């Protein structure tokens, strides 16, 4: 039994004019627009990290970037207490040989697709060998697998272009030059076909 409430909320009169078809089609179109906008955002976004770095990074060449500061910041929210070496790679002309130092805690070697996917990551640890080298090859290309020697480590890239990022933790102002010198040993060179 419904109790007799002293106050019964009354809907405004214009609300009774809304048809169920309006609600159903509006809701359906809203859902479609929601899905389209979500999937389109990464594709139409001109501000993504790869697009921004494309203008400042030469192709297949490791570049040590200046220490992040309020006047020199290449990407938003980029960690400021680390130094970065970056290489924009392109694999259509052949695989890319990568050598990188990952000297200790806070050091990270990461490989990214243009969409920002980090498909390979190697953290620096104190007891690990401090330098790593590998051949970056396009995913699903058997020619490179056959040509590589038994000692060559290969990493398959899901895209033909992308970014190699070596991140080095700054352990204090006095060690910036030393950290930068280790970071400069990192390289990224195209191996011609």
């Amino acid at each position, binding site marked *: 039994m419904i109790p007799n409430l002293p106050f019964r909320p009354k809907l405004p009169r214009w609300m009774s004019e*809304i048809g169920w078809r309006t609600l159903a089609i509006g*809701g359906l179109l*809203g859902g479609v627009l*929601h899905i389209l906008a979500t999937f389109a*955002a990464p594709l139409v976004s001109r501000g*993504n990290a790869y697009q921004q770095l494309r203008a400042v990074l030469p192709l297949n060449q490791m570049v040590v970037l200046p220490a992040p500061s309020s006047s020199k910041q290449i990407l938003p929210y980029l960690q*400021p207490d680390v130094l970065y070496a970056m290489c924009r790679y392109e694999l259509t002309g052949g695989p890319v040989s990568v050598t990188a130092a990952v000297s200790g805690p*806070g050091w990270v070697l990461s490989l990214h697709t243009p969409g*920002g996917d980090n498909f390979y990551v190697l953290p620096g640890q104190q007891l690990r060998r401090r330098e790593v080298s590998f051949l970056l090859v396009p995913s699903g290309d058997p020619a490179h697998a056959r040509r590589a020697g038994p000692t060559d480590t290969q990493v398959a890239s*899901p895209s033909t272009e992308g970014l190699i990022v070596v991140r080095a933790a700054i352990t204090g102002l006095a060690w910036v030059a030393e950290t930068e010198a280790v970071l400069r040993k990192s390289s990224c060179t195209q191996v011609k076909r």
Partner: protein
Amino acid sequence: MSLLTNALINFAVFAALAFGGGLGTAWYMIEAGSRLSTRTFGPWTSWTAAGRPEADPYTRAHTARNGLLPVSSTLELTFRAKTDSNGSRLTSACDYTIVLPSTEAAWWSLAVFDGQGRLVQNGAERHAFNPQTAMREPDGRVAIAVARDARAGNWLPSGRSSRIVLVFTVQDAALAATVHDGGQTKALPEIQRAGCR
């Protein structure tokens, strides 16, 4: 009501549902996130699939739209705080204290940015602390003061920008797996407001 009024009302509701609802909710899910793509611990929020190749569409859109380059969240988690532990907006007009427990994480970093993700301008050009640069208390904890003016100890200048954002990065694969799988984790550091001017 006239036929025209009726049509106008229906059109307005249709447009609000389709564009406001569809695009508005997409914008909210991409910018602020939801339980589908983020996890929140007190004032700290992390996009749990950031950087992963199998990330959900909201995380991918968030990463692309904001120009982020995250290391995979299988290794490293980035927590962002826009409010203090009491829910008040972080601003450079106030001073804050953050105490990090003696952590076993491989590496962490606490940085301060303005509301747009830019480094806060300050004469000391100091923007972050990590285990190697922060001074520890005798019990191993690290106390960091975020303030406009110089403080003794670990002082992180908050500059003159109105809104600030704190970013806490933890490199710990075990923590990353726990957070991603929805498990409980040790509490993240509280952000206590010490005073405002």
